[in-house]
Every structure is written in C-alpha cells, then in structure tokens.
C-alpha cells in the first residue's frame, strides 16, 4: 500500500469521524425525538462507511461482514424506534 493512499485512508477515517461528531451534535440538539432518530441512523451509516474504509486500510475482507450486518441491523433499530414513536404518539399500543 503506497504512502499517499494510506494517508488518504487515515484522512478519510478522520473526516468520517468529524462527520459523526457533527451528526452527534444533532443528536444532542434534537430538538424532537425523530430528529435524534435520524441522527442516530446517520451515525450508523457513517459507521458502515468507516468500517468499509478500515477494511481497505487493513486489507481485511472479514470486516465487510460487520459492515453488512451493521447496515441491515441498524435500520431495524431505527424502524423499531419509529414504530414506538408512532404508537406512543397515537397514545395506543
């Protein structure tokens, strides 16, 4: 792996980290719960991306397994929370 490429990968990881931090700001600021759910969703997407990048950095294809599962499963969490919000908003189970 050439030096510039590795540097780029580190830079990309850092940028993704910064992006996650920005997203976390929205999670902190809210103001409504759906806003936070969206932020959480985005953070998990950023994580999927980061894992892919890290897989490139370490040349470890096994990590993509994690990205795949994370991609599937994180939406599941979002769906569950949305469903909960929907139901409690209506005031019925």
């Amino acid at each position: 792996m050439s030096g510039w490429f590795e540097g780029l990968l580190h830079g990309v990881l850092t940028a993704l980290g910064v992006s996650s931090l920005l997203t976390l700001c929205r999670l902190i600021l809210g103001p409504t719960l759906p806003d936070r759910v969206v932020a959480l969703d985005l953070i998990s997407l950023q994580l999927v991306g980061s894992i892919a990048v890290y897989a490139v950095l370490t040349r470890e294809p096994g990590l993509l397994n994690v990205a795949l599962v994370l991609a599937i499963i994180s939406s599941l969490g979002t769906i569950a929370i949305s469903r909960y919000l929907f139901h409690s908003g209506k005031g019925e189970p």
Partner: protein
Amino acid sequence: METGLILVVGMLYAAAIYSMLRRSTVRLALGLVLLGSATNLALFTTNKVTRSLPPLLPKGGAPVGPLADPVPQSFILTAIVINFGMLALLLVLVHLAERTVGSDEMKHLNTEVPPPSAPGE
C-alpha cells in the same frame, strides 16, 4: 489509543455509576447498559497488540501481521451475550415494577419495612 481508551473506560464507569445512582429504575437500566459497555472495553484493554489484525487465519499460510489476542475477545463475546440476557430480564423487572407502583422512582420501591421497635423485654 490504549491509554485514551482506558481513560474513556473510566469515564464510562463513572457515567454508569452516576446513572445507576439517579434513583430511577429506568436510569438504572440505562446505567447497566453503560456498565456493560465499560466492562467490555475494560476487558479489551488487556489486548496488548494495538491496531493489529483480527485473529482470522488466512487460508493456508501465515498471517501477514501481528494478530490481536483472541482470548479477551472470546471473553468479551461471552460477557456481551450474558449481559444482554441479564439486561432483558432487568428491563422486564423495571417495567413490571413501574406498572405495579406507577412510577420509576426507586423510593416507591421500598417495602422493606423499617424495623419496628421491639415490644418490651
């Protein structure tokens, strides 16, 4: 990374304990989630080889770099699963308790009677 991670682990513990001390059963449950995370990471800090490859052996041939210590990993895996089971149970208890007493405040969960003063000896 290790040093920073360890400091963060300490902070996680502090947060977990603080949350557990919030006199609310819901916060207690949240605190226990944090406690689990903190503990898993604490176990992980014994993994001495930083930024190493996953302990996956290549098909036929030696691994190209230093592999991470698989032992703490297997421990943490076990701990995660156990913690998950416990947490689910706790959540149900918290919920049932909330439903029974109508609040998540711990003070409502106190039927341990104060010791009555004894009749005369």
